């Protein structure tokens, strides 16, 4: 029976553990279910939450995702990490020269950094007019680069398809004239799965029509035909005689030089403020682009300037160094250039922001300049066009941050109010942005220019409430646990007492009874007046006393005698049993106050002290009257045993084993114990015990009743 139960428990545990493991697995590793996209699907470039940016200035408009920064290694990632066999299609356009742009597949562990991810990248590079493919493991390994026909042009769309099946990879680029270039690579030690994304290096770029679909061997064959995948071997660098492999690192010196022709008549931006305000002057300035949307801003070492261009120009990227000619209009702190004619000089020269306090920015001294400011987020909202509006506070200043477009790191939704933020953007005092509510506003290129320095303070009302509830629940759980433990312990004690009572009844009491009968029989048989008769009678008396003691102990051990209601009557019954028939001791019992439920431990102790006190009075005091009183207070119970006997001198020396025992028992329940006695004037034993809170007593009492009922039920069932 026992082994069957154990087996059932074991099987139940096993089933529970298996279920738990399966559930965790299903939640944690959905790759068990879906290891590739289930069908061909167009990837939404618009849905912000699906993408995660690592560097770059990403914006979405008219179905096109643009990275307007020429950072080296800007990435925009999406998809789950467990996708393995799939292909990605996209149209790709390089915004500038001297860089590359393309697609990443099977990527994981992405971070901000030039090659900071694990995964494969394929793309178009205009440095050497190639379609290239390689692998990044926080460092770049280029496996292949193949010439694109007719060549790679900036500002022209190409269709890219990048496929991964098992450890085979294929990439193809189709130019606008229909020429297709294909590379196939086999990487025996390949990365098996990962996300996909968009990446550009050293130039801005655009992507559109991004589609992802599951890939099969047939798709691979359809893509590469008879082309046998080459084994993935990194191109060895450098060879010395051939500089081409170094291009990615060295940049194209000669081609770069072709664009390096700066204007000689350029004025500094700060000097524009000193021009005549009467009529707009026509000027030429040179500066680095610090913001492209919602307005174009440039900056040189002396200040910043807003540009309004009426002429079409190539898309500009942050970091482009441009020469601008136009009419200058003066404002209080800065100027703006209208009817501007823009000429791109060179790229890749981003300006670093100046770190200022909000109070410094509020002076207007940094108007139109690229700054870095810290503040605590007071509130946030979106204007319905994808522009985030944040209100921040820093000591005495409030300011507004306008977050442009779809930058996604971190996304606005994840920003919590009262978080401390550091932001990089253009400081403007233009009332179009400040609405004359704050001294200045910051125009941020993207939400990637927001850095969370620290979250909101933990001690919010909600958290405090949660904490209070937790403490309450924990306290309740602790008390419940304590109560149950106490219950189990007490049950064990009672069971043991019951067992002892039975043992004593069956052995000790029976033996005494037998001894008594035997002695009585001897007395009956021998004649009166023989010498041993007094000893026999003494022995009979001793056996009777011992029998009585045993019965008393047995009744004390039974829990039904320990209820408060039975305390007084049990003591009275005990006293009456002790008095011999010939004795003339008068016993009086009194109960005072409302009867309370007394915990077993307390009632047991009172009973034992009461027994001892009654026994002492009857045996030693030669009293004629014995008074037993139980008095109930609100949270106390008091036992008084008083006699009118001979009394004694109370001193520590006079305390015998019995009195010391009473003391000790009272100490165990933290009760107050006192003996008052004067020779010739009787003795009074007084015990005052404190009771626990009433609800606990109630619980304990109910449980005791249940226990007794259960025992009775068991007993009946046994019979």
């Amino acid at each position, binding site marked *: 029976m026992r082994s069957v139960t154990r087996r059932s428990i074991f099987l139940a545990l096993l089933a529970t553990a298996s279920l738990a493991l399966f559930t965790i697995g299903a939640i944690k590793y959905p790759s068990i279910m879906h290891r590739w996209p289930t069908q061909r699907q167009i990837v939404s470039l618009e849905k912000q939450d699906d993408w995660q940016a690592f560097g770059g200035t990403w914006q979405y408009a008219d179905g096109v995702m643009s990275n307007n920064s020429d950072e080296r290694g800007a990435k925009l990632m999406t998809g789950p990490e467990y996708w393995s066999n799939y292909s990605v299609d996209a149209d790709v356009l390089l915004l500038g020269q001297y860089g590359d742009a393309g697609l990443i597949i099977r990527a994981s562990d992405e971070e901000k950094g030039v090659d900071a991810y694990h995964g494969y990248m394929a793309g178009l590079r205009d440095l050497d007019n190639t379609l290239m493919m390689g692998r990044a493991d926080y460092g770049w390994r280029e496996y292949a680069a193949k010439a694109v026909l007719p060549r790679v042009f900036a500002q022209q769309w190409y269709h890219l398809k990048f496929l991964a099946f098992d450890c085979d990879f294929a990439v193809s680029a189709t130019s606008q004239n229909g020429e297709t270039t294909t590379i196939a690579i086999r990487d025996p030690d390949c990365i098996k799965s990962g996300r996909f994304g968009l990446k550009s290096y050293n130039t801005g770029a655009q992507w559109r029509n991004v589609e992802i679909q599951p890939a099969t061997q047939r798709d691979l064959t359809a893509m590469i035909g008879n082309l046998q995948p080459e084994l993935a071997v*990194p191109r060895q660098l450098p060879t010395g005689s051939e500089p081409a492999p170094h291009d990615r690192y060295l940049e194209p010196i000669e081609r770069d*030089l072709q664009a390096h022709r700066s204007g000689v008549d350029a004025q500094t931006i700060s000097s524009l403020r000193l021009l005549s305000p009467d009529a707009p002057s026509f000027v030429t300035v040179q500066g680095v682009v610090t913001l492209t949307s919602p307005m174009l801003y440039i900056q040189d070492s002396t200040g910043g300037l807003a540009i309004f261009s009426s002429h079409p120009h190539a898309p500009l990227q942050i970091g482009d160094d441009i020469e601008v000619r136009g009419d200058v209009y003066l404002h209080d702190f800065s100027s703006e250039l209208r009817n501007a004619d823009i000429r791109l000089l060179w790229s890749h020269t981003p300006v*670093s922001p100046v770190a200022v306090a909000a109070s410094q920015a509020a002076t207007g001294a940094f108007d139109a300049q690229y700054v870095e400011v810290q503040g605590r987020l007071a509130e946030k909202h979106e204007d319905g066009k994808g522009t985030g509006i944040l209100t921040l506070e820093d000591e005495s200043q409030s300011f507004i941050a306008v977050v442009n477009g779809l930058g996604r790191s971190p996304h606005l939704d994840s920003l919590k109010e009262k978080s401390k933020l550091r932001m990089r953007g253009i400081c403007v005092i233009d009332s179009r942005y400040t609405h004359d509510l704050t001294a200045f506003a910051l125009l941020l290129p993207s939400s990637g220019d927001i850095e969370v320095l620290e979250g909101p303070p933990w001690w919010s009302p909600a958290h405090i409430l949660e904490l209070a509830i937790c403490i309450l629940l924990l306290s309740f759980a602790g008390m419940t646990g304590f109560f149950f433990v106490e219950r189990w312990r007490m049950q064990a004690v009672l069971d043991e007492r019951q067992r002892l009572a039975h043992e004593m009844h069956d052995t000790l009491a029976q033996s005494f009874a037998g001894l008594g009968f035997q002695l009585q029989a001897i007395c009956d048989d021998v004649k009166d007046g023989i010498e041993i008769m007094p000893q026999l009678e003494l022995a009979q008396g001793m056996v009777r006393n011992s029998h009585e003691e045993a019965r008393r102990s047995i009744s004390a051990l039974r829990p039904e005698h320990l209820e408060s209601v039975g305390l007084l009557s049990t003591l009275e019954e005990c006293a009456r049993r002790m008095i011999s028939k010939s004795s003339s001791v008068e016993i009086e019992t009194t109960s005072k106050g409302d009867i309370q439920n007394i915990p077993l431990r307390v009632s047991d102790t009172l009973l034992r002290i009461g027994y001892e006190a009654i026994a002492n009075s009857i045996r030693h005091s030669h009293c004629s009257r014995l008074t037993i009183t139980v008095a109930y207070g609100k949270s106390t119970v008091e036992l008084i045993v008083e006699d009118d006997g001979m009394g004694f001198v109370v001193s520590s020396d006079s305390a015998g084993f019995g009195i010391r025992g009473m003391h000790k028992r009272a100490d165990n329940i933290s009760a107050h114990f006192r003996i008052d006695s004067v020779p010739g004037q009787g003795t009074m034993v007084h015990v005052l015990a404190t009771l626990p809170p009433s609800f606990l007593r109630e619980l304990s009492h109910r449980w005791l009743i249940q226990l007794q009922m259960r025992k009775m039920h068991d007993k009946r069932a046994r019979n």
Partner: protein
Amino acid sequence: MIERRRDSHRNRRIVICEPSKLFAGVLLLVSLSVVGCKRAPLTVAVIPRTSGTALWEPEHAGAAAVARSVGLNLYWNAPMRDDDTQTQISLIEKSVDRGVAGIIVSPIQTLPLRTPIRRVLARDVPVVVIGTELGIPTGPKLGYVLNDEQAGGRIAARRIGLILQGEGKIAIVGIGPELKSNTVRERSFETTLSREFPGIRVVARRLGLASVPQEQHNAEELLAGSESLDAIVALSLASTRGTYYALVEFGKVHSIKVVGFDQDLIPPIRDGGIDSVVVQNTFEMGRIAMELMNHEIHGTSGSAEINVEPVLMTRENVDSAEIRQILNLSWWSPQ
């Protein structure tokens, strides 16, 4: 009676046997998990000024070669620009938070990195600094692997002396007090030049700027000035490139000689547009730094400051084995 005793004995054995089986099962599971959770190799973060450049990728190759041989894992990442000090500091802090065993860093600037590195050391994480001194003395947990800037300055001065044959006027551009190594480089150059080539006069000095266009603008102003120059010494990578661009723009590539610092411009060296560049052996610096780190991690090193001699790259030796080894970018394979 005997039968019953046997039965009871058997029963007792069954009762004893079940916990022992359970215990054995638990023991097996624990053993398997211990075997399964084989201790991952320690990770060392290597954070150069930027990555993906001819100057710093060889450091990756050198450090990776040693890391592979001693069983260390390498985390390689850096700011996307070589003037982004704040991002470099963030990378250091994040690496420490991730629990890396050590950090090898090439500071972008000397002073702003001092406190972050002190904090890393305070957390008992060993550090090897490459390229410049921070002013923190070496110790069991801090070592330096430096480009021998004294030697670099001497090499450049002697090259100038050689190509100008001891006579002429020169300008120094790209002076950068924000990096101590640059200051040492400049002082060494000027001391050697004045001592060994008193006939060569420094007629202009320009502070270094953050970007190539700014350096180009700087050099253009210099070239547009009244003073005629025979040579320009550019003390940094950006100033070397900016100077070269300015010379191209002013059509003075072959009339004014350029001696630059730090590897970047190989094609102009090949065609004589730039006379020479004093290149840092970052491959060797990365290799030594990782060896030093390995010793620091295992507590087997004393304080160390190791200088690595730079090499003059000229048209004559640009394709030599020595230069090819210095420009080694193959971080993925054993060297």
